């Protein structure tokens, strides 16, 4: 298969696409149940830890003075970062006409929604009095008390709330035609569910035209939103006064890091879905190859921004920030810091080789390594600054307790569980877009039909030189 050069086999029949994708939603096999059990087990670890922490106090997480934030906030940023992949694939690549995204954007979008649902839990878990978490929202109160609009944490709440709503909506809107296919093939309760969800989709021209417009508008809306979300998350740190946090390049750095870990996450799920559901026909090696190239590019951007930060601190006049930077390279946290640099900046160079890019098993391992690197990156932002900043008497290093680890690990179980539900409820490969893609590819030769078809569908013009020429003629 590794000699495959086309993104997708153009000979696939429409019916086979429906059949393959819908089959993935049918009765689960053993592997699925095993995954569910594993995820539930992980989640229950987190639940046990959280109940314990809730009852006893935050101290059991071994958070302390001055290490007030720990893995919770690091992992929060990590999951927020993961969420950027879906937007990248479905929105950015959509408006830039990279049609190879089509077979894989659906699960990436789902990943966005679910990682946000995971990420959102962390700020809540880390609150000392989480039962009052709603106080960060600007609800009307008779006492006239509002949240502090100057606080980046409030911005976080808005940004994540908006992003979660939008991405869930985007996922849903994009799934409507597929939900209609499901409706047409389902029985029993699923029939009822999909009937409701597909909102009376019949697939006529008018519906397609509106659909295309809505989708495009959402895509355009989501791109700046996604960029702003991680910029805002970065302002949790960048707006502070602390060395190592008070960094001007943090917003782009965070966005780059987010896209980076998101892409790595997509590769991991790509491999898993392809393996579990035998999606070899849709999640093809050329698509993996392209995703890897994209990841590699982002990795380099991230590396560059890291270097910018280091050099600006090194040549700057902030003695304390410089001290902290040196400490990161040589101090207590240095093994983790070097590991992060290695995993984040050196390991991606393996993706310079096509052989590796097209190797399912290699990319599975690499993508996980990249994400470990990105998780360490988040921790290396939160941890060292707290342990050593301006006040030397408050210097102290502490390590997370089992409570923090359980909750971090459990978050993967929670995400996995959501995703496992998703693959059985919503088609994880977009059927209609794969058909479109194949249709475009098949008809690139038949230029007239292609252009007509596109005009009627209200879609952007087909990509590729051939398509453009077709319209001109």
């Amino acid at each position, binding site marked *: 298969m590794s000699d495959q050069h086309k993104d997708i086999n153009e000979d696939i029949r429409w019916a086979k696409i429906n059949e393959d994708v819908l089959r993935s939603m049918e009765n689960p096999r053993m592997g699925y149940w095993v995954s569910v059990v594993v995820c539930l087990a992980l989640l229950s670890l987190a639940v046990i830890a959280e109940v314990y922490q809730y009852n006893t106090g935050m101290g059991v997480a071994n958070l302390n003075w001055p290490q007030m934030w720990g893995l919770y906030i690091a992992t929060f940023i990590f999951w927020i970062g993961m969420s950027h992949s879906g937007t990248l694939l479905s929105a950015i690549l959509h408006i830039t006409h990279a049609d190879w995204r089509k077979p894989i954007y659906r699960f990436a979008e789902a990943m966005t929604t679910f990682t946000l649902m995971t990420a959102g839990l962390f700020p809540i878990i880390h609150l000392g009095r989480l039962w009052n978490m709603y106080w960060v929202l600007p609800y009307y109160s008779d006492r006239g008390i509002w949240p502090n609009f100057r606080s980046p944490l409030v911005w976080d709440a808005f940004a994540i709330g908006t992003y979660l709503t939008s991405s869930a909506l985007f996922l849903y809107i994009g799934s409507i035609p597929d939900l209609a296919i499901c409706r047409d093939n389902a029985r029993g309760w699923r029939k009822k569910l999909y009937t409701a969800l597909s909102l009376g989709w019949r697939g006529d021209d008018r519906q397609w035209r509106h659909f295309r417009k809505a989708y495009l508008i959402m895509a355009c809306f989501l791109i700046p939103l996604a960029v702003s979300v991680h910029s805002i998350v970065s302002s949790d740190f960048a707006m502070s006064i602390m060395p190592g946090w008070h960094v001007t390049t943090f917003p782009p750095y965070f966005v780059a890091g987010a896209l980076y870990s998101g892409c790595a996450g997509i590769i991991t799920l790509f491999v898993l879905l392809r393996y579990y559901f035998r999606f070899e026909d849709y999640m093809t090696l050329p698509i993996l190859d392209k995703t890897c190239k994209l990841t590699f590019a982002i990795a380099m951007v991230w590396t560059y921004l890291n270097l910018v930060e280091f050099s600006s601190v090194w040549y700057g006049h902030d*003695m*304390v920030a410089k*001290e902290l930077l040196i400490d990161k390279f040589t101090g207590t946290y240095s093994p983790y810091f070097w590991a992060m640099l290695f995993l984040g900046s050196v390991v991606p160079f393996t993706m310079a080789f096509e052989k590796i890019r097209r190797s399912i098993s290699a990319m599975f391992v690499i993508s996980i390594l990249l994400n470990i690197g990105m998780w360490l990156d988040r921790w290396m932002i939160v941890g060292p600054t707290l342990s*050593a900043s*301006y006040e*030397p*008497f*408050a*210097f102290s290093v502490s390590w997370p307790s089992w409570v923090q680890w359980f909750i971090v690990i459990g978050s993967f179980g929670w995400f996995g569980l959501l995703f496992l539900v998703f693959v059985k409820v919503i088609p994880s490969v977009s059927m209609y877009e794969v058909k479109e893609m194949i249709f475009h590819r098949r008809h690139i030769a038949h230029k007239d039909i292609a252009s007509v078809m596109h005009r009627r569908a209200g879609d952007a013009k087909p990509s590729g030189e051939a398509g453009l020429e077709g319209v001109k003629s």
Partner: protein
Amino acid sequence: MSLDKMKRREFLKVLGWGGVGTTLAGCDMPTTVTVQEGKEEVVAYLAPEEYVIPGIGVWYATTCAQCGSGCGVHGRVREGRVLKLEGNPESQVNRGKLCPAGQASLQAHYNPDRITAPRVRRNGQFEQISWEQAFALLDEKAGPSSGLAGDRFAWVSDTVSGHQAVLLKAWMDAIGSRHHYVHEAVNDAVWRAVCRDMLGDENPRLRVDKARVILSFGADFLSTWGSPIHNSTQYSEFRTAPRGVLIQAEPKMTVTGASADLWVPVRPGAEGVLALAIANVLVSKHHRDISSLPAEAQEQIRAYDLDNAARITGVTGEHIIRIAGLLNERGPSLVLAGASAAGHARGYDSVAAAMLLNIMLGNVGKTLESSAGFPFPQLAAKTGGNKELLDFAAALESKSFDVVFFSGTNPVYTAPEALKLKDKLAVVPFKVAFTQFDDETAQQADLVLPLRSALEDWGTHVPAAQPEQMQINMQQPLMEPLYPETRGFGDAILALLKLRKAPQYSAYDDYYAYLRNAFAALPAALKLGTISDQQFWTRAVQKGVIEVGAGRGNLATRVVSFTVAEPAEEGRPFTLVPSAGANLRDGRYANLPWLQEVPDPISKVVWDSWAELHPSAAAKIGVKTGDRVRIESEHGAIEAKVYIYKGMHPDAIAVPLGQGHEAYGRYAQGRGVNPLKILGLATETKTGELANHATRVQVTRIADKAGDKLVKLGGSEVQLGRKLVATVTADVFARTEGEA
């Protein structure tokens, strides 16, 4: 009783939780609300006791009884509870200021480990009894019917003064015993002896405020030595322009040393030599006249020239010249000598050498003033040291006592193991402990009589170190006793006296009545401005102090014969410095959680013992901060984690006093080690005091115990270039604030 209490609490619950925090906070106190079986007598808080205004705190004057300094305090009382203590500005001892231990006397009062009822030991077990039973027992064992009299009795106490001292003396007289031992593990007994011999005054008044240079040989006068808060208030003036210079010479940096302009590490035991070397420079370089000194003293001064002294003391010649220069240039000066100078076999001689400097520099009469003129010698403080402990132990050995009373002191804890005090006590047939807490001594006692806390009790105190205007301090209860089955110290002695001298003392219902009577008998000179005894009494209680006028008289100067000793480098390589800190002092505050939680000023360690070492000494042993060492003397060994810093002499290892309690409640028990336990029994030659700074020890690194950590506040020991504590030179200070 407990049934009633339960019901009262339930009643309070019914009243509603909303107000519990503020209006009914004194709910554990048997005051206004009483509930009897089947009948509830509800007294609303709308009609409280006349003097209780809900929500309003009222300040009452009393005296802090944490140590013998006798600081006046104001206690804030709200809804019948005392909440906060502050220094009494009327008291010239502390001028409104208070030390950590004074602040924490609230926790001695509210301590959860207080003894709430008398106990008697029967068949090795303690049993709770009533006071009536306790006194019946006392009558049997110590009353006239016991047939015992005179020196079969002994009393071991801490510093006592005022009318308690009078009553105690009356009791000792009543039984005809001369054995009243006043034991203070942290003391200035040798200094007092030297002052008595050389100045003719045991407690000369120190004028820290007047001095321009203070040279202190290990006298931690800001923290544990003398009257620390009195000294601190004066130190404040000492440091205002024209700013005085503080020089501290000691083997382990004390709190006072940490504030010194020049801190010099001196080899333990070489303080006397250093003092003479300074005198030598004063003579040779600054041409001070010593012809009036005895030949013996002159000879010794000449013997310790710079090279000689530098070799013996470990202090560089430069420093000696500098110290002498400062003492010569700036006057008046004040030379003090404290525990680390006095705690050697020739400690008296070292202190005498320091006092010689005072005489040479003409400080007597300027910064050392006479304390004579206190009109009531019977009320004066009776204080002591470790000699009394040794004497007591010796007397025990000759099996001379049938009954021993303990009050305010914990000799079983403070006695070195080598003294075998526990074993010696075992043969005494009847031991009575008057105490608030179940400490080591109380555990050895046969009868334990629970005392009221200082904040529940009446009394008068006369500070040993008096301010310029001498005073008697009033102690009054600030609240109802927490536990009804406790008695005041005065009440207890009065009750004892009634066993023997009923006719004289039966007129007094309680100690309060006795005090009122005693006050009526005070000379009229004290009562100026008051029209009646009642008014005098009220004024005394309100103000908290009775001023008895300024001291009179001049100090004598007599140079005693002394011979300073050079430290002998024999046996084990290190000298153990059992260092006292203000937080735990001699261990008596170890049961107060605030003082355990407050980091030691120097090492910043909490809730534990530690051993202090100089980096070079640590390198020799091969330890770093946080490693565990075993400190072994001839008489035993202790283990502690080390803290390394440059405030130590390389020959010394310091272990703080105060921890290592085997009893004494949840906060003190089983925490750290007690360095007093491994001290040798060598005594100071002239005074018979314990040479407690002379024990030689071997220090070896040992493996860590699991779970044992050195808990210390603070990450970085240095400022790392940030301007957190900035330092300017005294020249700059003189330029900018010189004429403040």
